[in-house]
């Protein structure tokens, strides 16, 4: 066991280093912190214009890649509510992403079977609402299940959504739905969101990421967030202390699904075309990997994770043939060397420290 202890000690040191940085950051004057954040935000917005040499993607359009990264960030933030905050294992998150994308496609595209031709902006709230309903429908009967049962049921749900789309002519079947309108807005008579310029989509996506981060932050610090935390740490104890666990788990599912739906709506608005091919099981796995690699429960962490999952493969297109293999190996190495994620959640640091004390090492549910 001594190797194990040594390894745990190393982990603990690493975690301390991160929390040290965190302490340094929180001790900076408020004004300084604000200024640094503002500069970072501006730089982020300017990324596709600056095209910084090493960061830019040499083999594919940088702005489009950045946009894709923002959709992954949104999805990871939503999934983080479910997995990181409430501790519910969801392997079918792509289902909500698909519901969001299809809602926009169905209500906005003139070539869909209902063809209500609502503008994109009207469809986004519809997409969010429908995703939430889908989350509640899935959660209602299944949230009483324990962790791993939930995993396979959610995985099944993701596949049910995809296969229903493949097999329903009303949803465009395998061919999907084309000519989905783009987000609105015009500048000097030219549409802002055109086919050829991905930058405005990226800016919109980035803005939404900031908005969602702020919203999720508020929820996390509210009564709901504290209930999630209690459920994650010990569901039975939480129930005994008077937390209506089922209700809050359902909320976690619905809120997570809503963010996923928003991400899907963004995707549909940019791509102008959805088909079941865009929503395979593997995408759910990628989303989950983003959350866990980044650090489940930590907002900044999951964003870093999403960037790693969505950006790195495009940056290193040269390794295309072997990129999934490298990705798989990277997941193993990450799990071994940074089990708490790149940027761990503060609570989890405490958990780790707890376990250090607990010689036998009690399993902690996540």
């Amino acid at each position, binding site marked *: 066991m001594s190797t194990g202890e040594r390894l745990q000690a190393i982990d603990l040191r690493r975690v301390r280093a991160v929390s040290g940085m965190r302490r340094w950051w929180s001790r900076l004057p408020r004004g300084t912190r604000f200024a640094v954040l503002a500069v970072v935000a501006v730089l982020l917005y300017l990324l596709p214009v600056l095209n910084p040499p090493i960061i830019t993607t040499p083999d*594919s*359009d940088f702005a489009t890649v950045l946009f894709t990264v923002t959709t992954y960030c949104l999805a990871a933030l939503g999934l983080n509510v479910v997995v990181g905050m409430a501790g519910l294992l969801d392997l079918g998150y792509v289902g909500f992403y698909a519901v969001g994308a299809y809602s926009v496609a169905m209500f906005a595209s003139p070539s869909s079977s209902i063809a209500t031709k609502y503008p994109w902006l009207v469809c986004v709230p519809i997409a969010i609402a429908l995703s939430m309903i889908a989350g509640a429908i899935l959660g209602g009967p299944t949230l009483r299940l324990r962790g791993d049962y939930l995993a396979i049921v959610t995985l099944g749900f993701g596949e049910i959504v995809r296969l229903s789309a493949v097999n329903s002519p009303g949803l465009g079947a*395998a*061919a999907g739905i*084309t000519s989905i309108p783009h987000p609105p807005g015009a500048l000097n008579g030219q549409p802002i969101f055109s086919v050829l310029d991905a930058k405005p989509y990226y800016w919109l996506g980035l803005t939404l990421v900031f908005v969602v981060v702020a919203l999720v932050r508020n929820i996390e610090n509210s009564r709901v967030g504290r209930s999630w935390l209690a459920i994650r740490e010990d569901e039975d104890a939480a129930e005994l202390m008077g937390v209506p666990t089922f209700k809050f788990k359902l909320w976690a599912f619905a809120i997570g699904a809503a963010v996923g739906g928003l991400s899907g709506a963004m995707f549909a608005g940019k791509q102008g*075309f959805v088909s079941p091919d865009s929503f395979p099981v*593997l995408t759910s796995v990628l989303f989950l990997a983003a959350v866990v690699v980044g650090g489940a429960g930590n907002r900044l962490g999951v964003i870093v994770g999403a960037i790693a999952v969505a950006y790195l493969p*495009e940056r290193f297109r040269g390794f*295309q043939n072997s990129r999934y293999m490298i990705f798989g190996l990277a997941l193993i190495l990450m799990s071994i060397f940074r089990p708490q994620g790149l940027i761990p959640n503060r609570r989890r640091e405490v958990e780790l420290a707890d376990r250090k004390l607990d010689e036998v090492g009690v399993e902690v549910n996540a």
Partner: protein
Amino acid sequence: MRQRHIGRFAAVAVAIALAVAGCSSSSSTSGGGSTPAASGGSSGSCDVSLGFFGALTGQYANLGVNIYDGVKLAIDQHNKKNPGCQVGLVKYDSQGSPDQAPALAQQAINNPKVVGIVGPAFSGESKAADPLFAQAGLTTITPSATNPKLADNGWKTFFRILGNDNAQGPAAAKYITNVLKATKVFVVDDASEYGKGLADVVRKSLGSAVVGNDTVQSGQTDFSATVTKIKASGADAVYYGGYYPEAGLLVKQMRGAGVTATFVSDDGSKDPGFIQAAGGKDANGSILTCPCLPPDKAGGTFFADFKAAYGQEPGTYAAEGFDAANVFLAGIDAGKVTRADLLSFVASYKGQGVTKQISFDSKGEVSQVSVWAYKVENGQIVADQVIN
């Protein structure tokens, strides 16, 4: 990952299966001049490139590599003949995924040297990428995406150098009724855009001869429920719209259950993988239709040149890729080195390619379409006859 394009990336080894057909008649007319217009050489520096857009890695790579080899051969031949005009070739490896397509299309558009694109290879990625190309005025000639609806989007830059599924479906139906004389046909599809689209055309063309339908899932390996249905229907022919992995397994399980109906499928099944999946002998007697010319029937010295360049015979759609690249090269040699000029050149192009007489109608479809029936004999796919 479980896309339905599986069948389109015909194994490179397609050539091996075509060897029988190939070896017998590869000594076709000499005079490589059949490749259009290596005219004047337009000695001026033509610092332009063509793009190849399709899967070069990943699950669907085989078909993309076939096409890429054909394109590269055309460009190499051109550059050899025109030392003063070296045309480049840029790869856009989409892995066949519609999600990766827009960023790559945008990248191609941002590169001012790229004046024409051979591809996108699949229908799904075409729908994601072609709107961008259309907006940017960058001409695309697809050598393999056969979804009929692609031509209905009003993309001025869209051209297709082979017959679409609306040509193949009725031809298959005609073959089933006229040649096979089948009166009871069971139609199966794989729910994919391609397979279901094609099967629906066949269903419509066959009319009352259809005695039963079923849809399977791609990736499925156990077709016992479908086979039971086929057996119960007493069909004398089975049409399958889809790709070779499922097609091969289906025909094998049919034979295993004692169903002797003739098995007819499409170009997505025209792949040695079909025979492998069927376990060799069970594939024999199957009919595969394809809007593609048997490679050895390709005009000029293409067949020999390809073999000399790559050490293997051209696979499915290699000749179409070669023709598509040559259309662009003819334009470049005629001094059409801007995207706009090249677009109007391609739209009004008329010339003899190795696969067919090439000219495009107003929707970008190639005017002359021939659908061939191929037959599996002794574990080889051999050309049977052209369907008129």
